[in-house]
């Protein structure tokens, strides 16, 4: 496979050291977006993914099973992503869980709000496969450094 050019397909298989078997929860009310993220993750070598369609369904899943990463949308019916993030940070068992937001919300005050609530990565839609890969790596680097 080629390497390098940003226009090429994002390659996942050559990552060094990262555990590809980590358990990831994808939360978005649009099933198409969940499929996109799931397929991108699969392409990056992460096959151990689960899905939820809003914070209310996601939270019990997070509490009953040990996930290593949460990827969530912001604007969802039921419980919004920002509230899910706050609930995760407030739960002693989940508080250290890395959380990445992938959302169309892009007001400055919202990004600041998410940062204050303890988000680990923030990606605005529409995004590229390369962006997802970079932000994931950044999160994992920090987790490993701890």
């Amino acid at each position, binding site marked *: 496979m080629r390497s390098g050019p940003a226009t090429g*397909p994002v390659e996942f298989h050559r990552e060094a050291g990262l555990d590809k078997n980590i358990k990831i929860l994808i939360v978005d009310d649009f099933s*198409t977006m969940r499929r996109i993220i799931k397929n991108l993750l699969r392409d990056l070598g992460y096959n151990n993914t689960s899905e939820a369609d809003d914070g209310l369904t996601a939270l019990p899943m997070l509490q009953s099973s040990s996930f290593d990463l949460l990827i969530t949308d912001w*604007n969802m019916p039921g419980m919004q992503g920002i509230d899910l993030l706050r609930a995760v940070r407030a739960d002693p068992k989940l508080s250290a869980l890395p959380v990445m937001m992938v959302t169309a919300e892009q*007001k*400055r005050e919202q990004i*600041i709000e998410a940062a204050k609530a303890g988000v680990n990565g923030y990606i605005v839609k529409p995004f590229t496969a390369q962006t997802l890969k970079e932000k994931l790596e950044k999160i994992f680097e920090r987790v490993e450094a701890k």
Partner: protein
Amino acid sequence: MANDTSVLHQDYVVRAREMLLQMEQGNEEESARLLDELVRLREDSLFRELGKLTRDFHDALNNFRLDSRIADIAEHEIPDARDRLSYVITMTEQAANRTLSAIEDSLPACEALEAQGEALKTRWARFTRREMDAQDFRVLAHDMETFLDAASRDLPRLHENLQDVLMAQGFQDLTGQIIRRVISLVEELERNLVELVRISGQKLLPPEKEAKPDVGVGVHGPAVPGLDTGTVSGQDEVDDLLSSLGF
């Protein structure tokens, strides 16, 4: 109310009869007093009517507030919704074109690899049946190498195109969020129009409280170019903002 009127009527009749009697008897002072009383009664009922009119006017003003919400929708939010829907058309068109381009780029490469692979398979079978002489085998080996070169050149391109098709589907989420927002506006407009019909159909009734629909606290949906302000314009600005916050 009807009772009030008849009591009032009775008051008039009693005084008018008495006044007529006093006049006929030449009792001017008493008849003047009764006339004054009649005038006062008339004024009282005028004030009552005026009070009623004032109350109606107050109610009408309250209802007018509802009308102004409709005016606001017509003036600002309908054009806004129209621009958002136009943006939906743009996004779906872009997504469709991006998908079609990826497919158009992929199909010829797929067909070529398929045809070459099929031809090589037939010749490889001849070789394994030992039906191929050395000269033909040299040509086969050369063609095989050409095929592998083509495969390692074209397959990453196909992979890239498939990923492009995958990412293009993000339009469904983004346009869905915009359309939901427009639907909630249409629902509000419908409620207001129904209320307006109710008010003009029946006589002015106290208006029900009309609250703006709750679209969720602090949720704005995808930024539409030219309409939404205070937004970042892409991932780079998000990264800059976050790094300025110590991320």
